[in-house]
């Protein structure tokens, strides 16, 4: 089955990491944008939503978890995959409770990351489909009322 390209936003203060992972994901056929801190990430989402955000937990300024909460608040269907280091596994669990789709440990195995990106995109697509059907039902009921 042909995999659809995924719209990805990488948010990480490691500029070189953002750049190289972007190149690699682009090479794998996806559309990628990068942001180097939480505020810039939120600004990029406000400009145009994406399918999946890859979000570093440990960043100076607004940390990953509060960025995650803001994202889920403003853009609830956008899926978030957290990037964690050794010391931040507990934080990753907290992140899952706050609505993150999954997490990967840095340095990530690329195949694992691709798998999770694809799964996240699928969940987002299903969620959007459910919303569309619900809206259609509401519309039909309304037109039925008339």
């Amino acid at each position, binding site marked *: 089955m042909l995999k659809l390209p995924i719209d990805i936003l990488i948010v990480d203060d*490691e500029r*070189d*990491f953002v*750049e*190289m*992972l972007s*190149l*690699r994901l682009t*090479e*794998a056929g996806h559309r990628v944008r990068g942001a180097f801190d939480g505020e810039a990430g939120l600004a990029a989402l406000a400009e145009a939503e994406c399918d999946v955000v890859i979000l570093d937990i*440990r960043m100076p300024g607004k940390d990953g978890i509060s960025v995650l909460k803001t994202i889920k608040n403003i853009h609830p269907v956008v899926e978030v995959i957290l990037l964690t*280091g*050794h*010391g*931040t596994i507990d934080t990753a669990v907290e992140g899952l409770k706050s609505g993150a789709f999954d997490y990967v440990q*840095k*340095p*990530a195995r*690329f195949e694992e990351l691709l798998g999770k990106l694809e799964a996240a995109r699928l969940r987002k697509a299903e969620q959007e489909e459910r919303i569309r059907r619900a809206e259609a039902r509401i519309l039909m009921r309304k037109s039925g009322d008339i």
Partner: protein
Amino acid sequence: MSEAEQPRVLLVDDEADFLASLGQRLNLRGLPTLMAASGSEALAILGREPVDVVVLDVRMPGMDGIETLRRIKESHPRVEVVMLTGHADLESSIEGMRFGFFDYLTKPVQLQQLIAKIEEASRRRLGEPIEGHETFTDKLQQHMIVADRLASLGELAASIAHEINNPLAVISESAGWLRSRAARPELGEAELRGSVGLALDKIEAAVDRAARIAQNFLRFARAPDAVVREIDLRELAAEVRDLSFRGARLNNIEIEVTASPDGETSLVSDPYQLRQVLLNLVTNALQAIGRDGRVEIKVGGGPEQVSIAVIDDGPGIPDEHIERIFEPFFTTKKEGHGTGLGLAVSRGIVEKLGGRIEVESRPGAGCTFRVVLPRHRD
């Protein structure tokens, strides 16, 4: 183990709240548990009640955990003891090993972990399983040595792992990207060259950064500390031999302490750091030999300087490596078997203590690491 055969536990800790709540939870989990708030109370209880396993806090006012352990083992040698220790007390817990405790757990303790440890200890007490027992103790010994070495490097290790992972991630993505570029036949040579150049720039920058992290790490490991007292090198050597003895015997390696008959072998220095260095050198020697061989820990005295040498009859160090062995992260061990930090940290410690490490390799015949230290610090 049936319900009736649950091990009888004695919990010893001076923190009343901790004692009461842990005691209650153990009781609820079906382990009949007695409680004592001090070492002397614990000994009194042991005198009148049957107990299988003692869970003992290392740090207590009055009679401390190590002393309590020593007395328990003296009067009730068949009782097994599990020590509870804080990170800062790891050193003294290691000392406790000489008095024969079963194992230690680091606070905060998870109940499930503690129960498992108590049951293990109780099984050993009942002599089952006989077969795994020796290896378990040996493993414990190795574990203790590693824990001991890590203790003075502190919890820094975790943050180092985290810091190192960032440049590693850059390297990993650069290499992965380059690989997928290289797999595309339609890419022109100039384009591919450009990709190679970019990826290499990123990789080199990441490597530099990782090296800087390592240097900062070492500087931290050399931070000054408080303990300085008179040490007899012969005692220290014997202690290190005792700590390494089991691992050595497993591989049929002899460890022997020798001392020059004359000359003063005491010095004023930091015993813990020095022990860490020696343990490290002996561990290296054991690993270099592999199987069947001999390690000599040789103590030399003198009016101004003392020395302690670790001499092995392993394969020696090839000439091309000898200049690099003190570099951080230089290692010839298999992945997962060494950080390449041991000698670098050891040299940092010895220099901080005012001494030096000398190495003399005899390719094919063995290797000598000699630590030379001033007897008095100014």
